[in-house]
């Protein structure tokens, strides 16, 4: 992947995706600004100027880029007193915690089940594991989230915590607040990882070096842990890298449902209040993150797999 041309096209894409705002949206924005009361009274020319719409389109892009590279700013939110990067930075820790926990939970579920499923191929356990994975992939995470919020509260009067306690204040309480959302996000990813773990291991089991390891009399446990799993992990690492876009998408939905103040919620709120500079900034930020993860995954791959490095 050629990073600079791609990054350039990405900025263009993010920029252009918001350039077709029809004129009447500005009217809507002004009406909402007045109705919302949170904004200062704005007139049309000022709104256009704030959106940067008072100059030709190419200049808008140049100005945006100039802001990023010369002043290190992604622009100014329509809510007074905030820059886009401030807003993202203040929300980022929540999203990172959610994402990391989701990956960890996903792997904790997927790896044991996938490995066991491959070792005991075509047994009842294998079928149950695979069926659960396919059902997990089919279940929309927002539905799962709503079910988790609804039924336990009806049956036992219990509902998941909806408040984020700062980690420094109370780590346990903080992790508990993230547990249910991460679990929901994690199970969705676990399904794919589990399936891949299973196929990767089965693939490795067919290799000659496994037969060699077995025929020289190694115990089955050693064959599996030392020879098979190590090699099967290579595609799994790639998959985890590929799941970052899934986390981004999932965060938008899950943060919205569980009222977690992360970047995903910032995006939805900005979209709902038509705070387009923030939408544009978040879009660029998150797609750049995704792009770099894909790049890093591509770069790590040969480090993990000497067969790729030397061929």
């Amino acid at each position, binding site marked *: *992947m*050629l990073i600079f*041309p*791609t*990054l350039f*096209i*990405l900025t*263009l*894409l*993010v920029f252009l*995706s*918001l350039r*077709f*705002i*029809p004129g009447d*949206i500005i009217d809507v924005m002004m009406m909402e600004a007045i109705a919302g009361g949170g904004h200062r009274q704005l007139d049309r020319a000022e709104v256009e100027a704030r959106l940067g719409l008072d100059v030709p389109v190419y200049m808008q892009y140049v100005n945006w880029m100039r802001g990023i590279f010369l002043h290190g700013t992604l622009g100014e939110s329509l809510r007074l007193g905030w820059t886009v990067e401030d807003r993202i930075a203040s929300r980022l820790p929540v999203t990172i915690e959610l994402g990391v926990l989701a990956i960890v939970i996903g792997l904790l579920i997927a790896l044991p089940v996938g490995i066991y499923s491959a070792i005991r191929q075509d047994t009842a356990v294998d079928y149950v594991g*695979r069926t659960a*994975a*396919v*059902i997990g*992939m*089919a*279940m*929309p995470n*927002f*539905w*799962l989230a*709503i*079910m988790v*919020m*609804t*039924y336990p*509260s*009806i049956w036992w009067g219990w509902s998941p915590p909806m408040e984020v306690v700062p980690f420094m204040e109370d780590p346990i309480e903080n992790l508990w607040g993230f547990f249910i959302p991460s679990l929901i996000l994690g199970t969705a990813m676990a399904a794919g990882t589990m*399936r*891949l773990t*299973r*196929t990767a291991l*089965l693939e490795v089991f067919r290799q000659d070096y496994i037969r060699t390891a077995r025929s020289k009399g190694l115990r089955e446990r050693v064959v599996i842990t030392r020879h098979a799993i190590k090699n099967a992990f290579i595609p799994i690492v790639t998959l985890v890298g590929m799941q970052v*876009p899934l986390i*981004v*998408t999932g965060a*938008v*939905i899950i943060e*919205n449902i569980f009222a977690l103040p992360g970047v995903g919620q910032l*995006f*939805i709120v900005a*979209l*709902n209040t*038509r705070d387009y500079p923030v*939408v544009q900034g*978040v*879009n660029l930020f*998150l*797609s*750049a993150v*995704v*792009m770099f993860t*894909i790049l890093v995954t591509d770069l790590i791959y040969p480090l993990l797999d000497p067969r790729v490095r030397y061929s």
Partner: protein
Amino acid sequence: MEIVRQRRSKLLSLSSRLAKEKPLGTVCGIIILIMILVAIFASALAPFPYEEMHLIDRLQGPSGQYLLGTDHLGRDLLSRIIYGTRISLLVGLAVTTISVVISTLIGGSSGFLMGKFDMFLQRFCDAWESFPYLLILLTVMSIVGRGLVQIVLVMGIAGGLGGSRIIRSAVISIKENDYFVAAEAIGNTKWRAFVRHVVPNVMPYVIIGFSMSIGGVILGLASLSFLGYGLPPGLPDWGQLLAGEGRRFMEVGPHLALFPGLALTIVIYCLNMFGDAVRDLLDPRLRGGES
């Protein structure tokens, strides 16, 4: 006539192999078939018109009269889910069709022409792949406004760009075959070689790939509607049923969220399993996680 008969017998033998080798896939195929019938005959099957309000029977649980209960305006949930089937399938098919056309055009020309054109398009696709799907959809939908035509176009184009990679690599691998080299060597024009030799060989990938993506489209539509950027309120798709009434009244009427989500899960599960089964039968090389 002969060709038609051959095709028919091919289809027959495929379905009998499906029934023999992939029982789960077959069951899922039958469920999908039932769903298509439900979608077509929605108006005959639904016990009530989907907008008919029974204000006395608001927010009732499942009962003999309302099999899946009613919402806050006393509208029959079963009828709304049945009409939702029609909308989900319609959007799924329309989006997939547009995606197929776009990705065949882009992937086909990119893989066939190569050179600078391909180089540029591939960088474009790299960038596109980095832009999370839901973010593009939400951003564009917030600008063009919610509506059936908008959503079909936006999702169709987004899916088409994403899927063009598969077509491109299929085209490139076909160009390396002897028969293609021979076709060019005997003096066929590029265009003719493309239409006669590349297109027919790529089509299986196209059809399989995209029929498998319908589940994803339905899920995407539901996610968009759930967040309020999908279809307008007059069209009750499953995501919207879940988001609107389902979420607002989840304490008093949990069935409002339960059943639409269940319908979504079953349909997506069946589409995935059926797609996997058919793909395994048609082309064992493409075997996925279920091998």
